């Protein structure tokens, strides 16, 4: 990929490639911006994706950038409608790689049922980027029954985790550091909008809170919830599912799966009266077989997350202070 002087290459790319591949009525109009009608309450979310490596087991930066923003909207209780797509490409990126990313973007949009309605591409000099950076911004329509707010959380609420932890983070780390495990571990990147919206359809306001445990992992999300809601959270380690091979990898690397990033998971805090029903609905979903009620909201130890460990003691699950500095003597 050459540096587009005067944007010749860039616009060529856009015309020939991106537009054609991602075509839909709004994008085809080729305005400077997309023009459309929306009614009711909407949610707007943006995120920039700088993952390295750009290709990894289970996905690449392309589908990650679509799923990530779709999921952020879903966590607000909104159904993603339209996305914008911004690329920063580093000079030297292979066209084939770019196409592969683009194809995943297209596929992810189709699965999630969203359209890219406007976009932008910039090419920067070699060394000023890292192959591809992607920004996506999404707009979504709020589910009429959604009322997602930390203020709704109350003592006795159940905390449900939609699936097994730590796959994405381990995948990325293995690539970056050149690590190998007995069996390949793949990222869990996937859109969560459909399952979340179906839960909202059925359980409405009884779904008190939603969040996806991406960077910082489950531990970080639970601490944020505990802080925002001013309650404590009790977690039972036995109920937190992690796949065998991921446990093995974490053990080998000395990582705690609670702190490892995920891309296709969500945590929901629900009214105890619907907890079992939410769980069975989740288990019917193709990625929800390992969903579980991992814990409960409590008035004890406000703002603290405490985990009952497999061997019986209780551990304080803290927010991670940046890098994992050694602590034990």
């Amino acid at each position, binding site marked *: 990929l050459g540096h587009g002087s005067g944007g010749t290459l860039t616009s060529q790319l856009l015309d020939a490639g991106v537009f054609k591949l991602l075509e839909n009525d709004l994008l085809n109009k080729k305005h400077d911006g997309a023009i459309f009608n929306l009614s009711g309450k909407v949610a707007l979310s943006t995120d920039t994706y700088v993952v390295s490596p750009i290709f990894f087991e289970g996905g690449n930066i392309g589908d990650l950038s679509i799923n990530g923003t779709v999921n952020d909207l879903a966590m607000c209780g909104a159904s993603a409608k339209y996305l914008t797509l911004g690329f920063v490409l580093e000079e030297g990126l292979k066209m084939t790689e770019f196409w592969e990313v683009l194809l995943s973007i297209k596929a992810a949009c189709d699965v999630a049922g969203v359209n890219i309605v406007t976009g932008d591409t910039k090419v920067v000099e070699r060394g000023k980027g890292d192959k591809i950076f992607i920004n996506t911004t999404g707009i979504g329509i709020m589910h009429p029954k959604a009322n997602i707010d930390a203020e709704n959380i109350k003592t006795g609420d159940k905390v449900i985790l939609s699936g097994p932890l730590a796959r994405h983070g381990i995948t990325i780390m293995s690539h970056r550091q050149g690590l190998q495990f007995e069996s390949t571990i793949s990222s869990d990147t996937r859109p969560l909008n459909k399952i979340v919206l179906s839960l909202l359809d059925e359980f409405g306001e009884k779904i008190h809170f939603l969040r996806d445990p991406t960077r910082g992992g489950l531990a970080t999300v639970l601490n944020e919830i505990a802080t925002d809601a001013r309650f404590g959270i009790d977690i039972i380690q036995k109920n937190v599912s992690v796949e065998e091979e991921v446990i093995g990898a974490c053990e080998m690397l000395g990582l705690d799966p609670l702190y490892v990033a995920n891309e296709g998971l969500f945590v929901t805090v629900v009214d105890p009266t619907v907890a079992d029903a939410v769980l069975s609905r989740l288990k019917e979903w193709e990625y929800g077989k390992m969903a579980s009620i991992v814990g409960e909201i409590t008035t004890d130890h406000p703002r603290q997350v405490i985990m009952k460990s497999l061997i019986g003691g209780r551990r304080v699950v803290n927010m991670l202070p940046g890098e994992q500095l*050694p602590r034990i003597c």
Partner: protein
Amino acid sequence: METFHIHVNGIVQGVGFRPMIYHLAKKLNLKGYVKNDSNGVNIFFNASASEAIGFLKRIKLAAPAKSKIIAAELFRVPDQIYFDFTIRVEDNKASGKQVLLSPDTATCPNCLAELNDAKNRRYRYPFITCTECGPRYSIMNSLPYERHNTAMQAFTMCKSCRDEYKDINSRRFFSQTNSCTDCGMKLMLYNDATTIISTDTETILSRIKNNLQQGEIIAVKGIGGYLLFCDANNAQAIRTLRARKYRATKPFAILYPGIKSVQRSFELNDQEKELLKSPAAPIVLLVPKPWALNELAVKEIAPGLQQLGVMVPNNPLLELIGNDFGKPLIATSANISGSPIVYDDDDALNYLFDIADFVVSNNREVIIPQDDSVVQVSKYTHQQLIFRRSRGYAPSFLDYRPKTNQCILSTGAFLKSSFTLSVNGNVFVSQFLGSAESFESQQMYRQTLKYWLDMYEAKPKIIVTDMHPGYFSHKYAFEFAEKFDAKVKLIQHHEAHFAAVLAENKLIKKEEPVLGIIWDGTGLGTDRNIWGGEFFKYENNQMDRVNHFNYFPTIAGDKTALEPRIAALCILAESEHQPSGLKEKFTIAEFNNYHALIKNANLFTSSAGRIFDAVASLLGLCDKQSYEGEAAMYLQRAAALYVDENAFNMDGSYIKEWEADGPVPTAIMIRNILADVASGKSTYYIAAKFHYSMVCLIGGIAERLSINHICFSGGVFQNALLVDWIKTKYANKYQLYFHINLSPGDENISFGQLVYHESGMKS
């Protein structure tokens, strides 16, 4: 005839001070009264000026053995006439509390004699005490030390007890813990969490004896919390205990019925004997005689170790259990590995049936839980090393006078947590408060701190803590600072260690420079590297890091500390050829992965602890540890076996020379060790030569800097052999200073933090 007031402060409550005053006043025919308040002991009396001065002198001379007078002052006060001398009990809550809490004290010989005297009314009463002995800190609710402020307030003395309490000629005159079978505490035997099957002492004691003989595990509420017991000669029972406690190889302590039986089975010098018999009655690490193997399942008790932790009963209940059983028992804090000792009765009943076959409780509350303290006397130079400072030692204050009365709190480190509080001109160091990762330990830490702050009505103005953002103590400091509107000050971990040992040895104002050898596992350094093998120079209140072990990479998190084989890999990362055998310690995937992680590492360490670990692994002694210091203990044992044969004779150091201003060349040392391994030298020899090399470094640096005073701190100096070797080699050449009342490990960090800040040190 005038009226005077004598005020005494220090450790003066719960140690028989008032009875002593009473006796003295009666003898001198003085009239007046004595009372405790939260500032100490106060005596008001009629006398002439010379009589009053004489009285003050005699009080100082007659102070009971367990007391410690910090100040005793005489004042003239407005005249008042007294007709008798009495002891007054008042609930006086004066502000600016100064009195010091006294530690729990093991059963005294008089009480022991009564316990075993069939004619005594307290024959086999499991809670016998007098003014000389019994629980203090563990039962104190608030100051001053009066019965109604302790867990004893639930028990009303019967007539006989009350008579003793009032009788000035009785050992129990004003004994706040006084009680007997009729009016005191009762044992309760629980078969499950809700069923009491007996409250009869003899029934319970015989049940304990019989079931211990059958190999069962029994939980018993002691002074500082619940303990677990099983037959120390029953390998299967100990394995079961390990499995139920999730405790793989960490050694257990052994309770012997008495000193005589310990002497029969262990090499015991006078110092060790005194320690076992002392009022603190700690666990003492001892080397067993071959004979002991007949009565101990040593492999299950302390796998791979030369020394065993031994104690004798420190309270009447243990005395009865130990003597009835007649043989050594495993005695260990009742908890799940990593959690603090269980002391609350509900918790005990909820959790302990997972470990114990039955639970023996009693109806006196434990207010301040404590573990047993652990002490060692080094074999050759008889240096006393405290490994854990808790029951019997805590909360005795340290002989360090702060410059001001300002309230300062320091929150310590991470594992082996403790806090230190400076209030009203006194400095208190808490007991060992457990590993602060567990919620229960953090709760215990918070509760103990709250107890102290309430007790002294203290509001910290300054909170000092470690730089490491991941420590509980660090987070807690900020949380607390917000609550008290206090300032937080961060102190580097090893500088705190150094400050602690300087202060314990009264070297803060030393004119000459002092060298600090601070070796431990991990502490965050000011350069964002992980320090651990540090050399400091202290002069004019200023600390400078003058040298350190050359940095080597370490992988993120605690993995390197847990697996000595990884420490070995880290140290050898930059080396051209890796020794044969190293790769075989790993699976192929592990090896490749760790190799990759180390190659990309962005964390570097100078940890002396990791160097010990690496050498232990390279010698095939330990590749993964299940408790802190395990690998270093195996390495120490190997070296000790060499020294047993060859004394401290060694043919040289693994580090011969190094660049004038460069860091200690860790890699050269390891390379030389590997050469000896490859040429088939014995493990014992190599382990010893490694110890010796570390010893030589100390002299090398002291010589370069021309310093004559050398201090030692950090967990590495729990290694008694290393200490012996240092003292053997340098005691005549240098002034050497070790910790006195504190552990060299991270338990001393809180004290060091406080000292560093309070004495205005710089670095």
